[in-house]
């Protein structure tokens, strides 16, 4: 991403600076006076949670607060809903597109869609999507490759800052696949039946290659078998030791996957929301990772509108029942924010599913304890329990509501405050000359351009000739909050706007800085008026 590399490059001119700020800070916190849902079905009112060095040290009512703890207390009005601390949510399917090599670059021996040997590397760290998930209450995610027919291996990470190095929990968690893929450059396969055939051939190849190579190694005095790239990584899948997570597009696709994946494989389906239509047809009941992107109501002009599809109307009505129907039918279930337009849309969708029959504790388990168990981390994740990772989410009232109000997310004991937005009181549109001051290291000049209304601003930040798009610009009261995301990390800047002057602070992977600014040009709106 070109977006942000410029800013990083500019800041890299201060060599010793980053190291200074990367020294760990010792953290002992006691969150007091909150309601704690330690795990689905278990609630402690007015309780305390002690966090030390990234782990939960103690949970309970009437705890003695350690002497070295920073006490975190909240002022609450009489009528305010209780602040509730939940275990951090676990996203079992954070899909990440990986760019395929050009058709010309695919060497003999490798099919461009067969990428079972793919594994992430720190350069793939999806900082932007990780922050979006964190803001939605997720603290851990299975990060999965989303390109190819057999796509490679996922890894499990916490969603803190500091990249993969600071957050990796497990590598090689599962293999991923999706039958509905077409090869780049118009080569085989370009149809679904072609993709299925390639899938079947690949499983055969994996078995054959293991046997053929072994035979040749034992007896090299024979023609050496050709080597097929990528398929060896399927060995643990075919042996049932590693799950195979397949995305299914519709009920018939689910059945198709079930038919073509051998029964000894630990198959998991990433679903589509139409499962209710053919539940009785499933020959097995594999674990489902279910998206909850319920459809909007069809666009209806009036009651005589002939063009509204009965099929769409039906699905609109029934989709929210889908999770409950799967549970009733005995399918194990996890939930994913995948397919939502933003991860934050998941919780209201869960609330709708609960309205339509999904048990609330079951829903919470799907996002915490059940997910942790499937991922093999239930000994230290998914609950608020001593010894577990201090992955927490703090909510006003309940988590599963139409408009959940998330206050804080803790990842590995580090606190991320998600301050509430106030209605905008200023309009920062225009061009701003900024000065970024890095303590004793000196100043860097930048230019910030913002357009659009305060409720939906866009813009860019230019530092030393490099231009970065603003990922998110929000106005809350008199404060402007900017975020720039990139593969290298996030930069956030908070500015208090006072007329044409601004003052505030910022932070990034390279540390904190202060900011001063002066509006030097009008916003586009003003130019037009």
């Amino acid at each position: 991403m070109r977006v942000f590399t410029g800013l990083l490059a500019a800041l890299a001119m201060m060599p010793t600076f980053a190291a200074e700020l990367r020294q760990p800070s010792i953290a002992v916190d006691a969150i007091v006076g909150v309601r704690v849902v330690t795990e689905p079905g278990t609630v402690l009112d007015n309780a305390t949670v002690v966090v030390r060095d990234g782990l939960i040290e103690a949970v309970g009512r009437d705890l003695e607060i350690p002497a070295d703890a920073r006490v975190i207390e909240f002022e609450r009005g009489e009528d305010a809903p209780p602040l509730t601390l939940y275990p951090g949510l676990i996203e079992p399917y954070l899909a990440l597109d990986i760019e395929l090599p050009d058709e010309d670059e695919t060497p003999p021996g490798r099919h461009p869609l067969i990428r079972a040997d793919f594994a992430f590397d720190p350069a793939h760290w999806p900082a932007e999507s990780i922050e979006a998930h964190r803001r939605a209450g997720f603290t851990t995610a299975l990060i999965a490759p989303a390109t190819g027919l057999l796509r490679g291996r996922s890894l499990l990470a916490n969603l803190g800052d500091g990249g993969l190095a600071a957050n990796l929990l497990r590598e090689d968690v599962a293999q991923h696949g999706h039958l509905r893929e077409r090869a780049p450059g118009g080569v085989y396969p370009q149809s679904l039946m072609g993709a299925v055939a390639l899938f079947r051939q690949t499983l055969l190849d994996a078995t054959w290659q293991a046997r053929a190579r072994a035979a040749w190694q034992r007896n090299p005095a024979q023609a050496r078998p050709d080597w097929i790239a990528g398929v060896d990584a399927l060995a643990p899948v075919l042996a049932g030791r590693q799950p195979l997570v397949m995305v299914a597009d519709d009920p018939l696709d689910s059945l198709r996957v079930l038919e073509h994946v051998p029964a000894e494989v630990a198959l998991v389906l990433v679903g589509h929301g139409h499962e209710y239509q053919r539940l009785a047809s499933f020959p097995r009941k594999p674990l489902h990772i279910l998206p909850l992107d319920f459809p909007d109501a069809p666009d209806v002009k009036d009651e005589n509108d002939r063009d509204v599809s009965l099929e769409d109307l039906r699905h609109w009505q029934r989709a929210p029942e889908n999770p409950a129907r799967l549970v009733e039918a005995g399918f194990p279930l996890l939930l994913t924010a995948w397919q939502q337009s933003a991860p934050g849309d998941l919780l209201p969708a869960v609330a709708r599913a609960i309205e339509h029959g999904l048990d609330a504790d079951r829903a919470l388990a799907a996002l915490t304890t059940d997910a942790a168990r499937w991922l093999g981390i239930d000994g230290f994740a998914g609950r608020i329990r001593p010894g577990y990772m201090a992955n927490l989410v703090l909510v006003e009232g309940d988590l599963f509501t139409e408009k959940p109000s998330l206050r804080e997310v803790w990842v590995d004991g580090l606190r991320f405050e998600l301050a509430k937005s106030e209605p905008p009181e200023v309009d920062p549109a225009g061009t701003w000359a900024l000065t970024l001051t890095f303590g004793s290291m000196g100043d860097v000049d930048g230019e910030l351009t913002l357009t659009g209304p305060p409720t939906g601003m866009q813009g860019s930040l230019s530092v030393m000739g490099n231009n970065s798009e603003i990922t998110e610009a929000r106005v809350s009261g008199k404060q402007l909050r900017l975020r720039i995301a990139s593969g290298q990390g996030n930069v956030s800047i908070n500015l208090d706007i006072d007329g044409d002057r601004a003052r505030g602070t910022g932070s990034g992977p390279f540390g904190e800085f202060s900011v001063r600014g002066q509006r030097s040009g009008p916003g586009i709106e003003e130019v037009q008026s």
Partner: protein
Amino acid sequence: MNRVFRQALVCALTLLVSVTAAADYRPDVEAWAIGALPPQSTAVVRNATLWTATADGILEQADLLVRAGKIVAVGRDLDVPRGALDIDGTGLHVTPGIIDAHSHAAIIGGVNEATDISTAQVRIEDVIDAESINIYRQLAGGVTTINLLHGSANAIGGQMAVIKLRWGADPAGLLFDAAAPGIKFALGENPKQSNWDNDHPRYPQTRPGVAQIIDEKFQQAADYARQREAFPEGRRARDRVPPRPDLEMDAIAEILAGVRKIHSHAYRADEMRMLITVAEAFGITVGTFQHVLEGYKLARRMAEHGAGGSGFIDWWNFKHEASDAIPYNPALMAMAGVTVGLHSDNPELARRMNLEAAKAVRYGGVDEHEAVKMITANPADQLGVGNRTGRLAAGMDADFVLWNGHPLSVYSRVEQTWVDGRRFFDRETDLAARAALDAERQQLLAKVLADDEADSEAESEASEDEPGLRLIGYRESELAHDQFCHAQDFGHVHGIDFRRGNR
């Protein structure tokens, strides 16, 4: 009665109706919504005109008895078990269920794997669309079995799937497992890429090239089969590198073993002769030529070789190689002793195959009963299911159609269609179901309109349908066709728009 109470009552009643209706078969526009298939009845059709498609010919005032999915008896004054469903067939005609040996009406995700010159490894059975509304609509036209074929983009296409139109079943439940394995071949303009917007030209670009590549693939597969055959079993194999299993070669080896039948798209006489000679060199017989436009020019050769002809009756001149297509082709091929079937290759045409058979009478004077066989017994034989369906005879599957008049008359309509002794289509039931579906739709529309929030969300949503499209809400598979074969495009017909014609 106040309004709220009345509304509640209406709701409760509607609910009740839908619950009780669930017990019976109710046709629906969505296959999944059909709870259970129609029951397998013991039933008799009395006093009807039976077109047996057997040596018995047409039986007047005869009865047809079915039980447990099979035809038990055909004849007059049959002994009918007590409690059998009794259908008065007076004035009605009964034919075997229609069999369409060339269809793409329920294939998901592409009819062609057009990339390589041979894609023998791909299988239509992996991508059957059990939700295709074409299944129900074709039942309403008297069709009970269709052969889902790969397209004609490559010389050796994919493996076909024969399905029965059991609307409501899963893909696996649709498969007609008795059918002989088959594979699509294609000759002429399509495999040589004559009419493609072609970014990826591939060998071959000529008819000699098509002939050569088929021969080459056959040789490869023969070698492959020999290697597999020669590979030792048991302990001796342990230190030997086994031949790599290859799904493409497996399928072609099955062709050479005579297990898998070739159904080859073919227009011109020369290329059909070519395939016959190549097949004979490998000791195999071509199953059918599909479309078989110039079949009449080598009909005796086809008959001697044993290839069937499965054709359009009157499509012609849409491509250069279709210049000499004539509607008399079925009559002439039949005269020469070829087993002739008529097919649709088009989901709309498939709904009136009886009229295609009638054209065989119109053009060349085929006997009416023989014409009915061209859409029943003959395609059944071609697909290897002639001992199961396509005829009204004891022991056959109870796949049959009730017509309200002469089955070849333009004025006749299908009243009922039965598959495996289950009544999947009944015009009366259909008319009743429309009302129920309409009521359901109205109720849901009202619900959307009453749901302010839903409404506001939707306003920003643009209609998904492209305005120029004549058809609304269809699944991709339902409009799929072999894009390399002919000129159909269901989508963009706006008035008379010739621009989309004849690609």
